[in-house]
């Protein structure tokens, strides 16, 4: 056996049987396996466990193709990359009409989940908590729709295929750049971290297309646009969610609370009288309790917590 012999040899024997069974068994094999399984309860247990692990892997087929197949760090040789690519196309399309195998794909993240989705063109989308994006890749365009939430788009250069993101009626087009879009209930924020993008609102054709560059933060709401500049450090803080953090640098407490609540089932509530307290600190997005403790200690607040919420009040 080429595998390392460690821990428990029954597992190796069980794995051998499952691999053999998957290849195809002779009558003699069937007999041997039956005997081995009946010899000892541990044999039967190891066999069923191995079989379960094997069928568990069938779920990999439910994964979006891009997540599993584009493995750049892998040291596959070129020839194999080509064949694997061709195989994917055939398997994915399953159709004869030359339909690109990646037509519409949807990716979403759950509560508190941060998910990075590599796209087939080398770009990537990182989804913040409770966000949803739809991706369409064709030979002519790369068009994405941010259906809800917040996402950072890192775009691979490909001038032949424009990369656009639609959020509500707001469209952002980029070539070789990175930007973050937030779809809040009443506004759409576009923060550009690299390069330049064009932004327009399809619901308001009178509004001119705006060219925005790294450092710009555009807030679009009902046909109105607000442009502000953000320092690289502020941008970094704003993107701290990618590592599961919330970084505050003097923003009001209310804003911190809103950010936490996007991540957690257990919600933070604050008395309006303390909404404007300035918060500074680096917090774990999934630890509202820790945040409440730190804040209450700093500002001498009263904390009341129940299963579903944590309430902060002046004491």
């Amino acid at each position, binding site marked *: 056996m080429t595998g390392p012999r460690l821990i428990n040899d029954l597992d190796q024997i069980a794995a051998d049987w499952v691999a053999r069974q998957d290849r195809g068994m002779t009558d003699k094999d069937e007999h041997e396996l039956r005997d081995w399984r009946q010899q000892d309860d541990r044999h039967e247990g190891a066999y069923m466990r191995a079989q379960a*692990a094997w069928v568990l892997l069938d779920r990999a087929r439910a994964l979006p193709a891009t997540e599993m197949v584009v493995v750049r760090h892998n040291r596959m040789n070129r020839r194999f990359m080509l064949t694997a690519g061709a195989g994917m196309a055939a398997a994915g399309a399953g159709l004869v009409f030359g339909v690109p195998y990646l037509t519409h794909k949807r990716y979403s993240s*759950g509560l508190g989940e941060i998910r990075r989705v590599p796209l087939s063109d080398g770009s990537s989308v990182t989804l913040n908590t409770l966000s949803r994006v739809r991706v369409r890749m064709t030979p002519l365009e790369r068009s994405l729709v941010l259906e809800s939430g917040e996402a950072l788009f890192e775009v691979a250069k490909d001038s032949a295929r424009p990369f656009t993101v639609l959020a509500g009626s707001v469209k952002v087009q980029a070539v070789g750049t990175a930007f973050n879009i937030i779809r809040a209930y009443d506004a759409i924020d576009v923060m550009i971290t690299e390069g330049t993008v064009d932004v327009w609102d399809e619901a308001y054709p009178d509004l001119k297309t705006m060219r925005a560059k790294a450092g710009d933060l555009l807030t679009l709401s009902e046909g109105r646009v607000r442009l502000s500049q953000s320092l690289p450090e502020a941008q970094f803080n704003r993107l701290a969610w990618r590592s599961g953090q919330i970084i505050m640098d003097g923003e009001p407490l209310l804003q911190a609370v809103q950010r936490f609540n996007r991540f957690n089932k257990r919600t933070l509530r604050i008395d309006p009288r303390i909404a404007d307290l300035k918060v500074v600190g680096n917090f774990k997005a999934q630890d509202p309790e820790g945040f409440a403790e730190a804040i209450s200690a700093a500002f001498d607040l009263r904390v009341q917590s129940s299963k579903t919420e944590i309430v902060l009040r002046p004491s």
Partner: protein
Amino acid sequence: MTNDLMKARWIAQHILPHEGDVRAWIRRSLRSIEVDDLIQETYCRIARLPDHGAVQNGRAYFFATAKNVAIDLNRRARVVRMDALAELEMGEMPDDAPSPERATAGRHELRRVAGLIENLPGRCQTIFKLHKIEGLTQREIAKRLGLSENVVEKQVSRGLRLILASLENSQTDPATAKLSEINLADPKLNDRPQTHKRS
């Protein structure tokens, strides 16, 4: 055969994801028991259950069965210390933890599966992807990669063995744990005396 497959599917879905937790619990509560033996016997007992549909909560069932097996092993072998079993009665059974992580279990499960395959070494990983994602048979894989079927079968077995090892340690986010790290960190790599013998 098909019956086995149905059972395997059920176990994959309802039992396997909790193995890391059950093992951790056994290690905490029953220091002197041979964990692998206990786990294998537990799987055997679960597989022999005639009607899996009756099991409401796979996780709780897994914990309860492991506990019963521990009691039986003790009876048979008389090596597990009695006070260890007393601890087991007292010890907290973490079988009901509706955490936010559980809420998104389906997706975690998918990513975990992806992680299991991603962490396999080079050629093994390629074979698993061709098999499990593209649906090629071992024979087709051998043809495509220019390998003999024996080599493919051995790689399948080797990869499955590595995956079985990483499932032992899977607790919160196995997708991030690399197999090599798991292997090095596994306490069972250190020699440990057998704690009991079968009669």
